[in-house]
């Protein structure tokens, strides 16, 4: 037989399998930890990729180009263009109020109906008096209508006519008193008083997701040209291309994902390392015996490593399954099977690597065991030295403290895992409970729970959605005094309304950066002027000086174009606006003053000042004294009202406001509560994923604690038997074991409270600097739950463990392997 023969993979495999059979607890804990870590990493990957995918999918299906005022034939031609994914035609006939309902009357072709997911029973309207009615509107009218029936209706243009109902719309209307009535194209023309049928086509271009704005514009022009559509009738949706960029995964989000994955794997790796470390420590004599019998170091190392890999392979499929389910549950609309498969593969590889690294050190320790060392091994790994005192206190409590020092590394590893879990829990939980996106709603509603404001929803007469068209439309509404004193009185007469505070705002076209753009001018009061003067104000000292003539106060930080086109006091701005008589005015308006609102906001955040901007100052680049704004335009430029209500009457006032103004075509009602709810819903998925992370980290800590307790008991069976033999009662043993593990819980609790709380506070401060909606709150409930969970776990496990030990007799336990 060759002396150098050392090929024995089969026996190593058999030994590993045998060892696995005898280590069920260790196997369970290890598999559980691996499964949870893989599940968590996979969940994060699927959440990040899925969120992006969801947004991109929504965008993919959105139209990027509008071709306006074209013929139906041109619309048809667009549809057959090879560069077009789909084209849908519509024509807005107009809108009007009928009773308490607002009716939007329009023509939409079949493609548009499909895009809008409108379900109906019957046929699409084709003839000149054909219409489709929504089922809920029919119910409101108290009618009984079937497809094919004829009805007499006013469609909002104050004329009652006979119409043939070709279909009933089954899809519910979005609002209780606002309904869409679909009519045939000839009917729409008739309602608009037009003889030549024109439609607008919304087009989705092929490959638009990969286009930048300029390429998209070029492509849209070419498609339009082929259909004979001139440039001024083509409008590209800029916002689409901005959003497409934002929706894709950025380098930043990939880096964040990698960091989170590493954190999770590190936390899990620590637990697995500890589990194997304790397991190896408990088998030192066994490894020593194997070495005595001729097993090489490499074989011992392979033996331990193999056990780790087997457990990894057993645990990971569960992790993949769980992670897939959680990833789908968080972002169902972003699910992509290929992404899942790819991510699963990555997680499998990461899992194998992580386990390999975690098990490496314990394997090395096992391999380094010498036969002689193993024989004398007692589990007490401290250096051989005399004790400094003759006698320490020997109560169960003090024995617990002495036992913790018996294997410092094990104690430290267990403590580290629990501390890490606790600190991360404290930090994450602080952020979750402090994050209050709804608080931003308070900023948007500085002085009231409701806002009623103008909106240029056109009637039957004006469909001009160009820049000038919008400027004119808003001015017309203000000229008609839609938001006048009469409305104010009406609002304040509602039960529960404390006040209705007006704010002034004028829509204009202004050229500040080389091309005309829609802008708004905020009308600020004398009280607001004091606030403006805090914002690095450069201008006349008093409010009265600003009233000498029309002039703008310009906020020079809110628009990035100011970097290329800076503006200073004394410059002029070319503006277009409409006055009370409907006259179009073009004027060069002087810049009387400049302010820097962004810097001022930042300074407030740093100093911890909570200052709410009034609506009269918020959000505009251009400002003018309110009195001057009215004088300049010769009309009341009130744009909306902030409605403050008594707290107990909030809901009732909301209902009354909705009843009075919900159907008004030129008014838009919003509420602080609804805005808050919307913002909170938006952050729900993000909070969920953070909670999942926190829960998993806690699970890792708890698994580690459970493993430590169980191995504490079973590796010290003999020693505990000796203690019982010399007279330590079961209760004293239970107390001693309990105190040992309570030390872990105690240290973890302190670290969670101090470091977790501290890091959490730091994180919240950082978020405040970034302008996120956070308000520091200590996460008492999650932290206390964690501490209680650990304490309960250690109590239950100790009781259970001592009970398990008693299943063997004292004599059997004392006979344990020497």
């Amino acid at each position: 037989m060759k002396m150098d023969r050392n090929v024995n993979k089969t026996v190593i495999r058999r030994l590993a399998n045998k060892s696995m059979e005898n280590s069920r607890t260790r196997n369970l804990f290890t598999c559980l930890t691996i499964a949870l870590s893989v599940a968590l990493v996979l969940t994060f990957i699927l959440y990040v990729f899925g969120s992006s995918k969801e947004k991109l999918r929504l965008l993919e299906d959105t139209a990027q180009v509008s071709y306006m005022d074209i013929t139906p034939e041109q619309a048809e031609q667009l549809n057959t263009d090879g560069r077009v994914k789909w084209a849908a035609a519509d024509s807005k006939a107009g809108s009007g109020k009928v009773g308490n309902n607002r009716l939007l009357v329009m023509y939409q072709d079949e493609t548009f109906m499909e895009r809008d997911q409108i379900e109906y029973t019957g046929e699409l309207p084709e003839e000149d008096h054909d219409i489709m009615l929504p089922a809920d509107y029919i119910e409101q009218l108290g009618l009984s209508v079937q497809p094919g029936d004829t009805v007499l209706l006013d469609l909002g243009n104050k004329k009652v006519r006979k119409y043939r109902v070709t279909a009933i719309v089954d899809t519910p209307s979005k609002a209780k008193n606002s309904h869409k009535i679909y009519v045939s194209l000839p009917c729409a023309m008739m309602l608009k008083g037009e003889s030549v049928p024109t439609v607008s086509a919304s087009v989705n271009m092929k490959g638009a997701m990969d286009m930048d704005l300029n390429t998209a514009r070029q492509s849209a022009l070419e498609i339009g040209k082929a259909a004979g559509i001139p440039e001024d009738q083509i409008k590209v949706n800029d916002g689409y291309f901005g959003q497409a960029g934002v929706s894709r995964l950025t380098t930043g989000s990939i880096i964040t994902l990698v960091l989170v994955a590493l954190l999770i794997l590190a936390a899990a790796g620590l637990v697995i390392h500890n589990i194997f470390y304790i397991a190896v420590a408990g088998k030192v004599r066994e490894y020593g015996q194997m070495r005595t019998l001729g097993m090489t170091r490499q074989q011992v190392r392979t033996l331990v490593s193999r056990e780790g890999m087997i457990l990894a392979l057993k645990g990971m499929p569960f992790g993949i399954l769980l992670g897939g389910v959680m990833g789908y549950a968080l972002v169902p609309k972003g699910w992509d099977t290929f992404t899942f498969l790819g991510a699963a593969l990555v997680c499998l590889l990461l899992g194998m690597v992580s386990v390999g690294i975690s098990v490496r050190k314990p394997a090395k320790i096992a391999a380094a065991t010498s036969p002689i060392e193993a024989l004398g091994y007692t589990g007490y790994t401290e250096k051989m030295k005399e004790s400094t005192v003759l006698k320490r206190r020997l109560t169960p409590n003090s024995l617990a403290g002495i036992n913790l020092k018996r294997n410092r590394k094990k104690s430290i590893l267990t403590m580290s895992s629990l501390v890490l879990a606790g600190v991360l829990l404290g930090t994450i939980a602080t952020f979750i409970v402090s994050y209050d996106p709804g608080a931003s709603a308070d900023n948007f509603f500085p002085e009231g729970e409701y806002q009623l404001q103008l909106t240029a929803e056109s009637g039957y007469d004006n469909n001009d959605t160009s820049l000038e068209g919008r400027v004119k439309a808003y001015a017309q509404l203000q000229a008609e005094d839609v938001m006048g004193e009469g409305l104010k009185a009406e609002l304040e007469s509602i039960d529960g309304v404390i006040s209705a505070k007006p704010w002034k705002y004028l829509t204009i076209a202004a050229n500040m950066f080389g091309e005309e753009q829609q802008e708004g001018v905020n009308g600020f009061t004398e009280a607001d002027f004091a606030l403006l003067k805090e914002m690095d104000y450069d201008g006349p000292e008093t409010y009265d000086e600003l009233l000498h003539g029309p002039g703008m106060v310009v906020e020079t930080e809110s628009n990035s174009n100011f970097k290329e086109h800076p503006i200073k006091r004394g410059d002029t701005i070319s503006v277009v606006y409409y006055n009370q008589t409907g006259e179009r005015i073009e004027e060069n308006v002087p810049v009387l003053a400049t302010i820097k609102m962004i810097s001022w906001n930042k300074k407030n955040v740093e100093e911890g000042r909570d200052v709410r901007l009034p609506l009269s100052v918020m959000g505009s680049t251009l400002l003018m004294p309110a009195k001057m704004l009215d004088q300049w335009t010769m009309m009341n430029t009130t744009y909306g009202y902030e409605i403050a209500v008594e707290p107990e009457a909030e809901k009732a006032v909301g209902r009354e406001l909705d009843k009075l103004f919900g159907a008004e075509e030129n008014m838009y009602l919003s509420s602080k509560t609804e805005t808050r709810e919307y913002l909170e819903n938006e952050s729900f998925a993000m909070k969920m994923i953070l909670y999942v992370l926190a829960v998993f980290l806690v699970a890792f800590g708890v698994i580690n604690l459970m493993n430590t307790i169980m191995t504490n008991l079973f590796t010290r069976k003999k020693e505990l038997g000796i203690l019982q033999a010399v007279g330590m009662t079961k209760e004293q043993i239970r107390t001693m074991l309990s105190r040992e593990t309570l030390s872990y819980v105690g240290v973890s609790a302190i670290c969670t409270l101090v470091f977790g709380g501290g890091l959490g506070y730091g994180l919240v401060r950082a978020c405040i600097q970034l302008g996120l909606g956070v308000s520091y709150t200590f996460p008492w409930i999650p932290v206390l739950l964690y501490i209680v969970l650990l304490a309960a776990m250690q109590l239950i496990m100790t009781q259970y463990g001592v009970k398990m030990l008693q299943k063997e007799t004292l004599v059997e336990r004392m006979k344990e392997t020497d």
Partner: protein
Amino acid sequence: MSILKTKGLKKYYGSEPSIVKALDGVDLEVEQGSFAAVVGTSGSGKSTLLHMLGGLDNPTEGSVMVAGRELSEMNDDELTIFRRRQIGFVFQAYNLVPVLNAYENIVLPIELDGNQVDRDYVMEIVRMIGMEKRLKNMPNQMSGGEQQRIAIARALAAKPAILLADEPTGNLDSRTSQDVLGLLKTTGARFGQTIVMITHNEEIAQMADTLIRIEDGKIRESRWQ
């Protein structure tokens, strides 16, 4: 006066047809202050007998009385406390607590009882076993013989009614064995201690006052030497 008495003591393992009768009706009496050696071959039941005498295991049948107390009438905690106060053990494998130094191991049963240590008494024992200079050493810093000396001191420290020694020299060389046996005898005589020692070695058994021979779970011989 008998400090230790058993009557009809039986210990059976398993069930028919493969029942193992480790003890099969043992009647035994040990006088106070005497040194008794229980001798038997491997599997004779001697260790089982020691476990019964020390309340470490429950008999299938029969009674064990130590210092006038019937062990079978005690529950687990009462038995543990009784062992702490009335029974001292010396094991073959020494069985010192590895995290405690020599002195702490000696006084452990007393401390578990919450009692004050009689330091003079303990130091007298320590001097007798010759371990004055090693009291702060940990078990893994001591030889087998030294550990066994400490184990003897621990067994004596609480002034128990009886001291039970299970093959106390089983892991020691002959010279050390002689030392340890001598110590057992000397300390037993000095403190009037009743000692019951298990051994398979006839020569060692000769050192005792009383020889009890056990075979197949039954006492075959009991005589003064």
